[in-house]
């Protein structure tokens, strides 16, 4: 075990996987010379050279398309999106090429590719630099989608994503990069598709992922003080969903709250709520409550962004509402 930052954990994952498999490489804007906007690629080019750590033009369609093409030709590319907000620029490449090639061409070749997408609120970055867009990709067959909440999962999921033969979108919350945590030494892998019960509890199931997990941990502490025993599940993988773990928990707690930073309407919480309402409604003793961002773009000004945020208090309040 060592205590490192989330950024360092992803860097260790990259370093280990690039050392292990020379087909692995990475491209993106400002990752070689600068080492990534959040330091998440620091020193990687020094170690592996700019032939495997490439600064690209500002050409997101070419970045994703070229990664796809290189994968078809035997490579295992990692692409950095700079900010997840720009994934719309190459959305066709993700939706119609990356996600579909394996199935549509009858399994001739899969796309072992990772798209890293730093997302979420940080620093009052406003409408075009603060979004959490993972829900789109839950709706696209052929993709896997992960969103770690801590350094250990960051490393383990990134390594698993790089080794996965399918395309994986790896959402990494910008506010997490500088957070620290214990990470197992050595070849630490976290399986894609497996949620993590972070806190056992008997009164209510609280499901979240990414940065919002930290708010949920705080909410659970607040609630524990009020005598509410929260079972807290870190989804970790958004697609495919670990339905089993959630249903098992809800069956015991009979209550479900889901929290995420993304806009509530049409978010990942909708799918989770719908699954439970379809598969386990008889277990439920309360409405399924979702906590998510309001239905507006992310505003800039301090009080507006504050009001926009999903906080431990809002989550705790939602949990209280179902007790």
């Amino acid at each position, binding site marked *: 075990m060592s205590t490192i930052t989330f950024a360092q954990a992803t860097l260790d994952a990259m370093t280990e996987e690039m050392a292990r498999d020379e087909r692995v490489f990475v491209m993106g804007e400002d990752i070689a010379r600068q080492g990534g906007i959040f330091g998440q690629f620091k020193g990687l080019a020094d170690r592996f050279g700019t032939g495997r750590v490439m600064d690209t033009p500002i050409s997101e369609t*070419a970045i994703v398309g070229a990664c796809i093409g290189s994968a078809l030709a035997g490579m295992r590319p990692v692409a950095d999106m700079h900010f997840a907000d720009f994934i719309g620029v190459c959305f066709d490449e993700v939706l119609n090429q990356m996600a579909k090639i394996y199935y549509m*061409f009858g399994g*001739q070749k899969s796309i072992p590719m990772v798209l890293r997408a730093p997302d979420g609120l940080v620093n009052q970055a406003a409408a075009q630099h603060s979004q959490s867009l993972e829900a789109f990709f839950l709706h696209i067959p052929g993709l896997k989608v992960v969103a770690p909440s801590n350094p250990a999962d960051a490393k383990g999921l990134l390594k698993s994503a790089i080794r996965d033969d399918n395309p994986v979108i790896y959402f990494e919350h910008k506010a997490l990069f500088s957070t620290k945590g214990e990470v197992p030494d050595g070849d630490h892998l976290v399986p894609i598709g497996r949620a993590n019960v972070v806190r056992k509890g008997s009164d209510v199931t609280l499901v979240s992922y990414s940065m919002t997990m930290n708010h949920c941990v705080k909410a659970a502490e607040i609630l524990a003080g009020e005598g509410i025993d929260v079972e807290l599940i870190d989804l970790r993988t958004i697609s495919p969903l670990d339905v089993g773990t959630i249903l098992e928990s809800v069956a015991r707690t009979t209550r479900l709250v889901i929290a995420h930073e993304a806009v509530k309407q049409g978010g990942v919480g909708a799918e989770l709520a719908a699954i439970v309402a379809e598969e386990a409604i008889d277990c439920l003793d309360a409405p399924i409550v979702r906590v998510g961002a309001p239905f507006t773009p992310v505003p800039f000004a301090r009080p507006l962004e504050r009001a926009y945020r999903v906080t431990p208090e809002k989550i705790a309040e939602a949990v209280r509402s179902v007790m």
Partner: protein
Amino acid sequence: MCAKAARGGEGTSPSKYGKELLAGFYRTMTTIRHFEQTVEKCFLEGEIPGFVHLYIGEEAVAAGVMANLRDSDYIQSTHRGHGHAIAKGADLKRMMAEIFGKSTGSCKGKGGSMHIADFGVGMLGANGVVGGGFTIATGAALAHKMQGTDGVAVAFFGDGASNRGTFHEAANMAAAWGLPVIFVCENNKWASTTPYRTTTSVDHIADRAAGYGMPGVVVDGNDVFAVYEGARSLVERARRGEGPALLECKTYRIKGHFVGDPEKYRTKEEVRKVFEETDPIPRFESAVVKARALTRKELDAIDGEAREAVRLALEFARTSPEPEESALFEGLYV
């Protein structure tokens, strides 16, 4: 490099080529022609579903370009992909079966005409998204470079596709990184119902190459020799590590945009005239016969074989089973 697009390969005499190459040109072109005529017929008779775009009249482009490529080179095709696949050496039977939606198809019936592909011979797929292939071919070329081979990749695209932003991003990336990719434009004068020049701001798409610092060459796309020569120098250049290039092949879309197109935007007369004057197959035939490079008899033999191969492919497709419904759920993830 910044000068106007060069013109290449015109007026080459067939006699300078070996018989094998010439026979190859002819076999490719005539196979494509028979294949496409068969597909058209079967579509119109209701045997083939989906959207089908025919390559008839443009055979010289695929034949001329692909004669420069190896199995280990890659191509990215378009929605009009049958000709590219055949020229790259894709298996005719599995192609036809795919177009028929049969389980024996190269994509197990999941793709159809618009997603015809044969990765085994480096044909990385037709693409239903116009302009979807530029960046993918660029990535395949990047892989060649990273792997230290002298392989190349070719991105085929239409005059209409030239206006997609993906062209620009791929061309710049390829040129900035010196990647071995050739962008081959099939300027067939039409993008669906829209005449080339009404939506494209320049006469020659090859004129855009200079803006990336890469060579841009225009050839007569209905002259297989011109295409072959034009592609040859650019492919060799790319193999030597000298970077990407753009080859514009001037041709004409003889058939409707897709099979079933009512074609109200142009006259039958216009099309008939162009076809009579420029059909690449009789042009090739008379050139080689005149130059005594191949005889009529030799040509007929090749044509007969092509016809027979297509017939067998059709039989294979027709007699192959449709996929089981359960196949729907197979092959989403590895």
